[in-house]
């Protein structure tokens, strides 16, 4: 019997966010990027670096030790790597809330820094993915060796079973670009994109075409989590972690042999996170959906419970997921059109929207937001943020 998750609900808040510029070539080391984002998040929280007593870094990039040592943090009480790929930065909200609620730490710093374009490219992370001997023996010898190719296999099957179309994925991709065009920090802020551009983009791993694929980015993001009771004395409107859960799908070391082919971590994590928050998917005003590929975001929308499985094609029609629509998704432009900072940028945008500080791309209502993560071979996490 697990503890009543409701006990952890609303006990911790995201109190600070920070980011660098996002670009194709930062001209700085990942250490510099990490420190810039971390300092910005700590300052935004109204704290000093020595107030930080726990750090959760990404599996790639600077370590907690290195960042603590360069921020003058002399008593780091806790650090660990949450290994959930692109679901890491949503899952870290759970760890941070647990640390705080149980008195292990008071102020938790979470960060991600990468030269994902100019340095190690995004697909270079594959050697951290589980089931390496399976990939080596039964996949890579067939010229099938990067996540986009693996996820394309899921997308094709979704098209076969449910009649999902390229236009459906295109509606998602075009919405991301429209949003990015309103976001001064987005790498694609000045690059418009039409449905024709999308349909005519080059095939990469069919059904994925170029404009289904995320950006590769240099940059960093960070956030700070503190106890709800302390958050009210800090400078910004607190953003409560009302619900959060992470989950592994059945056999998370292989993507293709699950009894339920479309089961992902989110399938299990989402109901737990909503239960913890005491909410239903229909209570949510909008979402930040981890969009490494447009089709992957479509799968997540279904498994998170925002529509039934097989119905996402209808869900994304008629501007529903665009700003001004009934359920805006990724007002920052997502990984497809803002930047690929491993999804920490989705948490940051969730906070910015919750605070009402998103400027031209501010959602009309952002009191209850969901943030999702997708990692490796379908790892998943979902957080419900309340302001």
């Amino acid at each position, binding site marked *: 019997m697990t503890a009543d998750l409701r006990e952890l609900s609303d006990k911790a808040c995201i109190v600070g966010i920070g980011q660098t510029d996002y670009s194709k070539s930062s001209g700085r080391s990942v250490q510099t990027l990490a420190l810039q984002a971390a300092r910005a998040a700590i300052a935004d929280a109204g704290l000093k670096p020595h107030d930080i007593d726990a750090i959760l870094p990404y599996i790639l990039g600077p370590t907690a030790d290195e960042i603590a040592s360069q921020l003058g943090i002399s008593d780091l009480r806790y650090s660990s790597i949450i290994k959930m790929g692109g679901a890491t930065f949503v899952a870290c909200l759970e760890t941070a809330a647990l640390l705080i609620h149980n008195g292990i730490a008071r102020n938790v710093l979470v960060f991600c820094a990468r030269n994902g374009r100019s340095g190690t490219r995004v697909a270079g992370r594959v050697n951290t993915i589980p089931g390496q001997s399976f990939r080596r023996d039964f996949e890579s010898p*067939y*010229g099938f060796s*990067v996540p986009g*190719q693996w996820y394309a*296999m899921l997308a094709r*099957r979704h098209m076969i079973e449910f009649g999902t179309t390229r236009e459906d994925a295109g509606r998602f991709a075009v919405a991301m670009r429209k949003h990015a065009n309103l976001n001064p920090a987005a790498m694609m802020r000045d690059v418009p994109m039409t449905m024709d551009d999308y349909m005519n983009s080059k095939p990469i*791993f*069919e059904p994925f075409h170029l404009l289904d694929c995320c950006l590769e980015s240099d940059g960093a993001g960070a956030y700070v989590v503190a106890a709800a009771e302390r958050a009210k004395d800090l400078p910004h409107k607190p953003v409560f972690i009302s619900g959060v859960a992470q989950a592994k799908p059945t056999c998370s070391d*292989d993507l293709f042999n699950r009894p339920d082919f479309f089961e992902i971590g989110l399938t299990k994590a989402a109901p737990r996170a909503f239960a913890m928050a005491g909410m239903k998917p229909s209570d949510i005003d909008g979402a930040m959906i981890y969009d490494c590929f447009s089709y992957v975001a479509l799968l997540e929308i279904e498994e998170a419970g925002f529509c039934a499985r097989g119905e996402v094609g209808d869900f994304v029609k008629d501007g529903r997921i665009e700003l001004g629509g009934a359920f805006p998704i990724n007002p920052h432009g997502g990984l497809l059109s803002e930047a690929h900072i491993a999804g920490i940028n989705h948490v940051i945008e969730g906070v910015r929207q919750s605070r009402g500080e998103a400027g031209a791309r501010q959602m009309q209502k952002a009191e209850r937001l969901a943030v999702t993560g997708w990692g490796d071979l379908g790892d998943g996490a979902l957080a419900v943020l309340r302001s």
Partner: protein
Amino acid sequence: MTNDSAKPQKPLPDPADIDNAAFWTGTAEGRLQVKRCGACSRYHWPPRLGCPYCGSDQVAWIAVDPAGEVFSWTVIHRSQTPGFETEVPYAVVLIALQAAPGVRMVGNLVNCAPEKLKAGLAVKAVFTPAAGGALNLVNWRPAEQG
């Protein structure tokens, strides 16, 4: 003249990995094997040392009919796998084995244009020598070719 030594080498399985060695012994003899659980009787893939469904350690290799149908596929136009850069476009297929419910295997489509792929297409295994004949990979061709 092409200089073979300068060509990027395709990744190869490691037949010396003791956990999967029996699979390569099988393919060398034209047999396709998967793992089956002695406790719950379910087949599984990729091959593990314990049953992913019931947790039993009574799992063993078993030869199955090397036939199945296309469950899904992707056509790769830009390959990031060494040695495959010049082979684009090529199809990677996910094959549901007829004789081993629940098993889906990755391979290349051979003897067939990618445009002819469709869900449910019946296929048979083709054992393709690799590593200079040191082992056989498992690829797939349309069954209607006999």
